[in-house]
Structures are given as structure tokens and as C-alpha cells.
């Protein structure tokens, strides 16, 4: 099992550009999550999904969109990138039972200039 994979590893965007961060898991997890981590800080939840076709907002959803067409994939879309979106983005997944251990991908480092 590869676990949770993310692409790209690093990206530089200009202000106003758009991009999609890819996330795939091969553990057949129902729940998937997107977090951002600013320097020296903990993780903040952007969006999450409890299954294919179902998504919901987290703590900091503004400026982002998600979709969940399959169990395996949970892409995060940035529209009109802003410097405030410079961060490291982590995707995670879990079984979605009462034990909520989340397994994380390696992260995507995004720089908006």
C-alpha cells in the first residue's frame, strides 16, 4: 500500500492563478481531509469528505473548493491564488469509524508570489 499520496510536492503560483492539488489514498478509507499548515503552527482543517459525493467545510474553507467523485481521490482546488494561501497542504484519510486516526500524505508546499 502506498497510503496517502499527494502531488505536486512543491509549486510556485503567481497571484490570481489557479491550481489543483491532488490527493489519492489506497486504503479504502471513507473519510478524507485537507489541512493547511502555516510555519510554526498546527494544522487547520480546510475541507473534509465522509464519502464519495459528500463534502463539507472545515475551519478555513475560503478560497478553496473540493470534489469527491471516487473513494480514492480528493482534489483541492485553489481559485485566484493569494499570498495568504502560501502554506504546506496536507491530505489525510481515515476509516471514519469511532476511532478517528488519520493517516497523512507527505504534503504539498505552495508559494504564492
Amino acid at each position: 500500500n502506498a497510503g496517502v499520496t499527494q502531488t505536486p510536492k512543491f509549486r510556485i503560483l503567481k497571484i490570481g492563478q489557479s491550481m489543483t492539488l491532488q490527493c489519492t489514498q489506497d486504503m479504502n478509507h471513507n473519510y478524507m481531509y485537507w489541512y493547511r499548515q502555516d510555519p510554526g503552527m498546527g494544522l487547520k482543517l480546510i475541507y473534509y469528505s465522509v464519502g464519495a459525493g459528500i463534502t463539507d467545510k472545515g475551519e478555513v474553507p475560503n478560497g478553496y473548493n473540493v470534489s469527491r467523485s471516487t473513494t480514492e481521490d480528493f482534489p483541492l482546488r485553489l481559485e485566484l491564488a493569494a499570498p495568504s494561501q502560501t502554506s504546506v497542504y496536507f491530505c489525510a484519510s481515515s476509516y471514519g469509524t469511532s476511532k478517528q486516526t488519520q493517516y497523512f500524505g507527505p504534503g504539498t508546499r505552495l508559494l504564492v508570489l
Partner: protein
Amino acid sequence: GESVGLHLPTLSVQEGDNSIINCAYSNSASDYFIWYKQESGKGPQFIIDIRSNMDKRQGQRVTVLLNKTVKHLSLQIAATQPGDSAVYFCAENTSYGKLTFGQGTILTVHP
């Protein structure tokens, strides 16, 4: 709002010593807690978890203690090694399927 925080942002220890990392939480309804380790340039890695109906849980070289009376969580690492150097986060289950993470503690182990 409810939050999870850490008492100490940094901790330096000598190799072989025991390390204790603390975490305070404020949501009395949280029923599940996790400790994660994050090495530089990597995603958080699960270390150990504990449910609210337990006070203590042990893993390999790690022990998590939960004190619900004072809403305090701690991670003990026995015989700390240089490979343990990382940022450690506690997280609490605030609602079904969602975790709230603390700021993190930087653990540095000196040879």
C-alpha cells in the same frame, strides 16, 4: 471557541533521558485523543492514541496519560533517541470524523 494547546513550545533533552510533552485541551466533550510526530518536510505520523474512558496507554517507548479532571494530556518518551527529534502534536476529536490540532512542541534530542 474550543481549542487544544501546548504548555511548552520547545523541549531539549539529552539522549537517553525521558521526555514529557504536555497538552491542554478545553473541549470536555472530546472522547478521543491522538499524538502525532512530524519530522521536517514530512506529514504527521501517528504515534499513539487514547480514548476518554482510559487514563493511560502504553506503546513501544511511549506512554500517553490523560487527566480529564484538569483536561490535560501528556506524551512520555522513554530513553529518548536523536531520531525522536521532531515536532509533536496532540489532537482531539471534537466531532465525529474531525480533529482539532494543537500548535505543536519541538523536541530536540542532543547526543
